[in-house]
Each structure stands twice: as structure tokens, then as C-alpha cells.
């Protein structure tokens, strides 16, 4: 088996008496889409926060590309190659779509402590931004302020921002949430395309999409991973059906 790109070792986080992640261990292998599913409040977002350094775990380790990053700040992890999108869309509303992505590109290319040249006229950054925007199908919206984009477009923009940081691992927190049927279709097509180029940890409620996209699935219930396996294994796992899939009727 290949060396995992991301390894979580017993991540534990309590809020008061509530163990939101209760000793989560899992591995994401290079090249795979690893989906994390689970009912509302299972701790999926908290888990991504712990992986990216927004929430500090009480116990456990995050090992990324062989390096223990448990004590790294969010920016440092991003520079190491972890990129994420947020469940609640997070873009700079007052910037154009292009400037949003160019910000990520500039974080990747050279120092941002440059004071003289107008950033908006840097060809290299704009080209990188346009490329990422084209990848997510937003090229024609490049000059629109991010705040004026539709919900689905904002989700795609966030994805473009994440891509522009040139990540080795993408962490996507419900990229399809709140998107209309058409947008969902477009986003799924996009994720399918990304699949060949990136390793992805995908949190998603849309089972259709998860079964179509994922190589492996981990099921998180009340902060614990109750099963990890291929799509077929998870669909056939009676415990999972009882604990989770049953409610969906899937």
C-alpha cells in the first residue's frame, strides 16, 4: 500500500462535555477521493477544522506528507499544500473573482511583501487566476465582484481559489450544499475532472454524488469513524445502513 498523503491519529476535540471528534483516525491515500459522510452534527466540519488548524485538537496528530503538522497554523499548512473550502462560502466579497484567485496565486508565487507595483497589473498572477477560473468554468465572470456572484458560482470560485494555492490535498466541506440542480451537475462534472489531478477529502451529504465520485468512504457518527471502505463495502455495511443510510432511505 502506498504511503498515505494524510494521516489522522486519534483526533479528539471536546466542547464542554460533548466529544465532537472522539478519537478519529483515518488515512487519505495519494490520488484518491476519500469521502467523509455522516449525519448533521457528526463532527465533519470540526474534523476539517482540526486538519487545517482552525481548531486545535485536544489530543491526536495530523500527519501530512510525512510531516507532523499538528502544531502548524492555518497559513503554514496551506503553504505546505493543504487547501480547503468552507461549508459557509468564504470569499472576499468586495474583490472581483479574478482578484480573489490572484490573491491565492500571489501567496504561491514570490513574496507578498512587495510594495511598489500594482498587483492588478501582474500578468503572471492574472494568468494563473484566469487559468484556475477557466478550470471551474468561471472565466467569463472574472470581472464580477465576488459578492455579486450566485451561490453556486461562489462555491466554484472558492474551489478556484483553493486550486490556485497549488495544493497537494483538497479538503472540500460540502461543495454541493445549497447549489441548484444545474449547478450541482456542473460541480459534479468539475469534481470528476479534478479527480485525475488531485487528492481530495470530500465531506458531502449528497449520496448520489459521493457514490459516483469517491474511491473510499469513511462514515462518521457522533465523532467516531464507524466504518471505512470502498463504495460497495459501505453500501453493503449493515451497521452503516442502520446508523446512517437508513435515515436517508438510500
Amino acid at each position, binding site marked *: 500500500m502506498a504511503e498515505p498523503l494524510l494521516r489522522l491519529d486519534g483526533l479528539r476535540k471536546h466542547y464542554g462535555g460533548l466529544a465532537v471528534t472522539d478519537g478519529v483516525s483515518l488515512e487519505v491515500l495519494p490520488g484518491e477521493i476519500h469521502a467523509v459522510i455522516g449525519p448533521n452534527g457528526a463532527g465533519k466540519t470540526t474534523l476539517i477544522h482540526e486538519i487545517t488548524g482552525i481548531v486545535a485538537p485536544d489530543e491526536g496528530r495530523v500527519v501530512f506528507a510525512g510531516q507532523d503538522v499538528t502544531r502548524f497554523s*492555518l*497559513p503554514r499548512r496551506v503553504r505546505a499544500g493543504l487547501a480547503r473550502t468552507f461549508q459557509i462560502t468564504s*470569499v472576499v466579497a468586495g474583490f472581483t473573482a479574478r482578484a480573489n484567485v490572484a490573491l491565492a496565486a500571489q501567496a504561491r508565487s514570490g513574496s507578498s*511583501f*512587495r510594495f511598489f507595483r500594482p*498587483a*492588478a497589473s501582474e500578468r503572471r498572477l492574472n494568468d494563473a487566476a484566469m487559468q484556475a477560473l477557466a478550470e471551474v468554468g468561471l472565466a467569463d465572470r472574472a470581472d464580477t465582484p465576488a459578492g455579486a456572484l450566485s451561490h453556486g458560482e461562489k462555491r466554484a470560485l472558492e474551489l478556484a*481559489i483553493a486550486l490556485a494555492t497549488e495544493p497537494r490535498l483538497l479538503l472540500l466541506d460540502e461543495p454541493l450544499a445549497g447549489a441548484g440542480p444545474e449547478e450541482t451537475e456542473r460541480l459534479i462534472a468539475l469534481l470528476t475532472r479534478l479527480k485525475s489531478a488531485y487528492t481530495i477529502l470530500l465531506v458531502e451529504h449528497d449520496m448520489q454524488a459521493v457514490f459516483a465520485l469517491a474511491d473510499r468512504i469513511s462514515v462518521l457518527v457522533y465523532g467516531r469513524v464507524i466504518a471505512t471502505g470502498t463504495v460497495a463495502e459501505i453500501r453493503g455495511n449493515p451497521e452503516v445502513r442502520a446508523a446512517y443510510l437508513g435515515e436517508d432511505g438510500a
Partner: protein
Amino acid sequence: MREAWLPLAVLIALGAAPLLGFGGSYETTLMARTMILGMAAVSLSFLVGGAGLASLGHAASVGVGAYAVAILDAHGVTEAARVLPVAVGAAAVFSLATGAIAIRTSGVHFIMITLAFGQMAFFTASSLAAYGGDDGYTLYSRTEVLGTRLLEDRLAFHYICLGALALTWAVCAMLLASRFGRVLRAARENAQRVEAVGLAPYSFRLVGYVLAGAMGGLAGFLLANATEFVSPASLSWQRSGELLFMVILGGAGRLWGAILGALAFVLLETWLAQQMQHWKLVFGPLLVLAVIFLRGGLSGLVARRHG
């Protein structure tokens, strides 16, 4: 930038004024005050509107620059080649030391802690008995430029202040447009987004705070020379409040708004003070009304005209 015709017109008018018969001592004193406060306000606007750091202690960096001039003057150092770097450097160092702590906080805490640091500077200045204490310190002479008494020349000083104001505006605009400024602006709106692309806002904000402080120091250098007098009042929190008011009156969204704000402030204050003894009775409520009704400030009004 097309909407910036008004501040450009103001700068041109300031440039032409001495040639059009407004070159007397009274007028130039008033204009120098406007331009110097305008510089301080523009650098504060860079912080408030650009970086989202609403400092209520900006007058302290102006005051540090002014006191550097006074202290060097007391020790017989009056050459600009030495005084100017010290004034700007002292203000930058002060901003670095206080900013390193203040920028860890945010929102109201930031407003309060910058206020507190401003008060510390104020009390320090008040206790400098060797340099006048509470009463302030009168300079022996204006700073010399390469051994000449250039700053004593009314016209030369006028155009130096004008140049410094234009320079401050240009530098702040350049900074905000640069990579550095892009990070600051993005972090003002959404700090987590900036972190999530791999940049830590803290260091960018601190550098911005220090740069603004250094520009404040430059304003302080000119202020000390304009009035040939320095007192703790120039670093009081009331003065910081006035600077902040100029920024908001002009509109925090545009750097040049601060120039309009400073102009309107000085003109209004001067005119009211001529009309009545207790002019603050009118000035205070006007300030309240401006905040409540004039959202977006004067520059917002101008910009709206231009669609």
C-alpha cells in the same frame, strides 16, 4: 480615479493660493495646518479604510515625530538630514512596539488599546520637564535644510507641506494597490480567507501600522516646524479623535476623502471660532449630525455624483 478631480483641484488650489494673493502669514499658517493634518489623516485613512485598523491613537505617532524635533532642538541638533530620519524613525519604532501588541486584538479592543497607548505617550510627554512638561516646548528655530534656513521661508515651507501631502497620498495609494495592499484589503474584509490562501494577516497589518506611523512621524516633523512649538496636547486622544473624524467626514472608503475631511474640518473649526467664543457648542452637534447622516462621507457624495 476619475472621481478624484475634487481632491486634485484642492491640491492645485493650495498650490496656486500663494500666487493669487493668499500668501500672507495668516493664510499660509492656516493652509499649512490643513495640509499637515491632511497628511496625518490620509495615513490614518490608509489604516482605517485600507487595513481596517481603526486606531484611536494615531495622534501619538504624529506627536512622537514632533517631540523628536523638540528634543533634538533642545540639544542643538537642527539639521533636517539628521532630524527628519530621527522623527520618522522614532514614530515607526513607537508604532512597531505598540502595534505588535495592539494588532493581536481586534474590534473594540483594538480601538481601546490604541487609545491606551496614545495616553501613555501623552503622559510621557507631560512628564518631560526638560522639554516643557505640560506647558510644551518652543523651538529655538525651525529645522535647517543642509545648513540653509529654507523652512523659515514662508513660500518654501508652503510648497514643502504641499509636496509632502501629495507624496503621502501617492505612497498610500501605491501601497494599497500593491501585493502588500491587496493582502491588507482582503484581510480587512475576510481575514480567514487570507489565512486560507496561506498568508498570515498579522505581519501584514503590523507592517501597515508601522508605515502609517512613520508617515504620521513625517506629519509631526512638519507640525513642529509649522508652529515652532510642541506640546502634549498634540498627542492627546482628543486629537486622535479629530483625525479619525477627518477620515470619516471625508469617507473612509477613499484615501483622498481624508484630504477633503481635513480641509472641511479646519475651515469649519476656524470659521466657527471666529463667529463665537463657544464654537464647540455648534461643532459638536455638527459632528454628530455628520456621522449620522453623511454616510460614506464627503467623498461618497462626490463619487455618487459620478455614478
